[in-house]
């Protein structure tokens, strides 16, 4: 039986593992996608202490720190979580994967992160990996010499556009409301001759034959439908939390994010803590996820001391 199971190996989960293992808690990290969302960022400029950082490398260091202090890490996709009682009436948690393998622990830190939100328009599914992509870091080089569109205007979208300037001929950025990404990136993009911002644009459909050939959007000012001839559609319109397997095991808000006490990272279920992008915190940043992971682990340690 583990003292604590940490679900997710991103910035929040691995930091929780560092703190938990330094408290000598018997710690296991269950990893689904190595390094989480941070590892998808080839360049990070706002992580304190580093001026130019590769996300995957950063998370490799997090992971090494965690395992050096004694945390175990393994690949395991949880499908189910249950609460049981032992003979002494002590509660413990059981995680189960699709093969029915079970792992037991006295406490759990949920740090599953989030995945890209989809547009939900016709053509999106059909042309997924045929021009529609959610990972600019992975797929930007495939669009060398092509015209592409980035849908969204948060930091992820602006970073995607920035990466694409190295490869694509023309980059449209489709903005529905206002630009929410950092002004420093926004200013840079405005100076790029291949970048064109399209405002008040609501994506309606993605069209193509074998691959994407165009995107249709509604110009909300004129109420007309317009078409952009592009071969790539980079969707960056925010994220949705990876909480499917939880069901209603602990409280979630209307977005599916786990509701936590912001002081203690406690969820609605005693012994279950949560940290990072999977929770209802406001800001989605690697440095914040790391801090949240540390908080969750320290609170979890206190809880274990008084309850086990």
């Amino acid at each position, binding site marked *: 039986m583990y003292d604590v199971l940490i679900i997710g190996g991103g910035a929040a989960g691995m930091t929780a593992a560092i703190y938990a293992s330094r408290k000598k808690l018997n710690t296991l990290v269950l990893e689904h996608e190595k390094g989480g969302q941070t590892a*998808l960022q080839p360049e990070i400029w706002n992580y304190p202490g580093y001026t130019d950082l590769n996300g995957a490398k950063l998370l490799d260091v997090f992971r090494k720190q965690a395992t050096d202090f004694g945390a175990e890490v393994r690949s395991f996709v949880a499908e189910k979580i249950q609460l049981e009682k032992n003979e002494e009436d002590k509660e413990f948690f059981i995680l189960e994967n699709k093969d029915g393998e079970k792992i037991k622990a006295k406490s759990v830190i949920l740090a599953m992160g989030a995945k890209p939100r989809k547009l939900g328009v016709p053509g999106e599914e059909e042309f997924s*990996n*045929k021009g529609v992509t959610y990972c600019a870091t*992975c797929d930007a080089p*495939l669009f060398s010499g092509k015209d592409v569109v980035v849908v969204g205007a948060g930091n992820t979208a602006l970073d995607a556009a920035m990466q694409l300037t190295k490869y694509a001929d023309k980059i449209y950025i489709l903005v529905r409301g206002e630009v929410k990404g950092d002004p420093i990136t926004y200013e840079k993009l405005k100076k790029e001759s291949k970048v064109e911002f399209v405002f008040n644009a609501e994506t309606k459909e993605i069209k193509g034959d074998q691959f994407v050939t165009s995107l249709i959007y509604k110009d909300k000012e004129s109420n007309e439908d317009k078409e952009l001839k592009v071969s790539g559609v980079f969707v960056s319109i925010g994220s949705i939390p990876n909480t499917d397997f939880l069901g209603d095991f602990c409280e979630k808000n209307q977005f599916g994010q786990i509701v936590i006490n912001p002081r203690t990272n406690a969820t609605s279920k005693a012994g279950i803590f949560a940290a990072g992008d999977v929770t209802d915190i406001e800001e989605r940043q690697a440095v914040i996820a790391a801090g949240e992971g540390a908080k969750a682990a320290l609170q979890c340690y206190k809880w274990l001391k008084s309850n086990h």
Partner: protein
Amino acid sequence: MAKVTIYSTPACVYCKMAKEFLNENKIEYTDFNVAEDEKAREEMVEKSGQMGVPVIFVDNEMMVGFDGERLKELLKL
């Protein structure tokens, strides 16, 4: 032994995961960096009908993205 080919880009974390998986299981493979190698990029798109990396071929079986369980099956591990 099965012929394994992977089409990848350098910054792609799923590509790295796939290659680490192959290395850990001591599987030999040919890696094409499609960010640089234009010919390989065209070949990948033509053979797979996909515009997303990684694309992995185990003999004639194709996998897009990285799914460790499926790759294990394809490699009969």
